[in-house]
């Protein structure tokens, strides 16, 4: 029998535990062990960005991290971006408003990446937006509406802060 480890995480503000072998990827722990299937998995080698989650607030690839390495840390997935009452976050509203998604496969990764991007840089230039999302692939939208969504989200966040 393969050795298993007790893994404790705070996911979207909730304390969660799971028992898994060391080779369990964080993406799989979230999806299979914790049932949080909002985090998508496209390539499992770091290229597509679908699986991006926030680790202690910083966006990382959950497919390139062992779940045991994340033990004791705080994770935010796409399920944790909305308010407690389910109100979509400004970033989520902007993507909806600007049609920043079509099939939605890439969207969880974009939402997590952009949430951190706008926290660090509330008024990004076009170039900074492109650099910020350069590690996320979308096969549907052609990116124009995603870039527009990021700028719109910056506006919504600024309004909310007022």
């Amino acid at each position: 029998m393969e050795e298993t480890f007790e893994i404790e995480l705070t996911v979207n503000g909730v304390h969660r535990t799971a028992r898994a072998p060391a080779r369990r990827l964080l993406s799989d722990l979230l999806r299979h062990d914790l049932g949080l299937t909002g985090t998508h998995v496209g390539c499992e080698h770091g290229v597509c960005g679908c699986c991006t989650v926030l680790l202690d607030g910083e966006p990382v690839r959950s497919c390139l991290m062992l779940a045991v390495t994340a033990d004791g840390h705080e994770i935010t997935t796409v399920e944790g971006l909305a308010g407690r009452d389910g109100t979509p976050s400004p970033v989520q509203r902007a993507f909806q408003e600007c049609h920043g998604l079509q099939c939605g496969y890439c969207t969880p990764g974009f939402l997590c990446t952009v949430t951190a991007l706008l926290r660090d840089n509330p008024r990004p230039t076009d170039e900074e937006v492109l650099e910020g999302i350069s590690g996320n692939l979308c096969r549907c939208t052609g990116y124009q509406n995603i870039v527009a969504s990021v700028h719109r989200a910056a506006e919504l966040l600024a309004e909310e802060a007022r």
Partner: protein
Amino acid sequence: MKPPPFAYHAPATLAEALDVLAAHGADAKVLAGGQSLIPLLNMRLAEPGHIVDINRVAGLDGVRIVGSEEDAQAPPGGRTGGKGVRVGALARHAAVERSAGVAAVQPLLPAALRHVAHPVIRNRGTVVGSLAHADPAAELPAVLAVLGGTVEAVSAAGRRTIPAADFFTGPLESALRPGELAEAAFFPALPPRTGVAFTETSRRHGDYALAGVAAVVGLDEDLRVSTARVGYLGVAATPLVLDLTPRARQAQDGRPPGAADWSGVAGYVRDHLDPEPDIHAGADYRRHLAGVLTERALRAATADALDRAQTPGVHDEAEW
């Protein structure tokens, strides 16, 4: 696309990590940022028996400015105790890229880091891991090589300092021995009246480069080009350094400061490189790219050197 089974170790101290590495030798792999190792595991291109996850080892994430100004002027290779940037094994690309102290002491580091993968990958990947991984198309090995930096290796048997020229031994191969951990890397400071530039060509922004160039140009007291060292990625099995000083002096000859003629240098570089073709680019195209990029990088590094030499205060960073 899942990792194969392995025995997992998460030491809390360096001593513990070295004991585990000593016990398992070549069957153990260090896990740092995982941005290269986990893809290899997922694709089952690597099947180590033991993974030594160093993410819980305290004290490895430091990014420190060390040494004195005089030491920075020692020749490359003789600078291990000199002024420079010491990057610990757990310092992430992003932390080094954002450090104002690093940018002031060795601006080639942030310039190159902007080309390493994407911001999200840089949040996890480590500078030292990138050196240990020794991908011939990676940016940081070429930076360490052109600057004449070193890697500090430590094992249960002791420690040693490995000069960049000896560290990269082949594609994805370094001089690290089984049981050894790279504890830190040292990047020498930029000497006065010196400028840097980093440029590369890749198929998509953030991809590994087809070819890339890291240039360091030094000026004499009359602000005329006096030295030029260039590091290449993607054109050989290991990072390649060319000392272009004689060509640089020729380029400057008979011209005022800031007006060196670099047009002949591309041809010279093309004649001295012998890249391997692969599915991304043929040998001729890589050779061509290296020539064009060299000319661009030398021009930019010269402008950077003039800028630094003529802007007092840029170089004496009082507050890191």
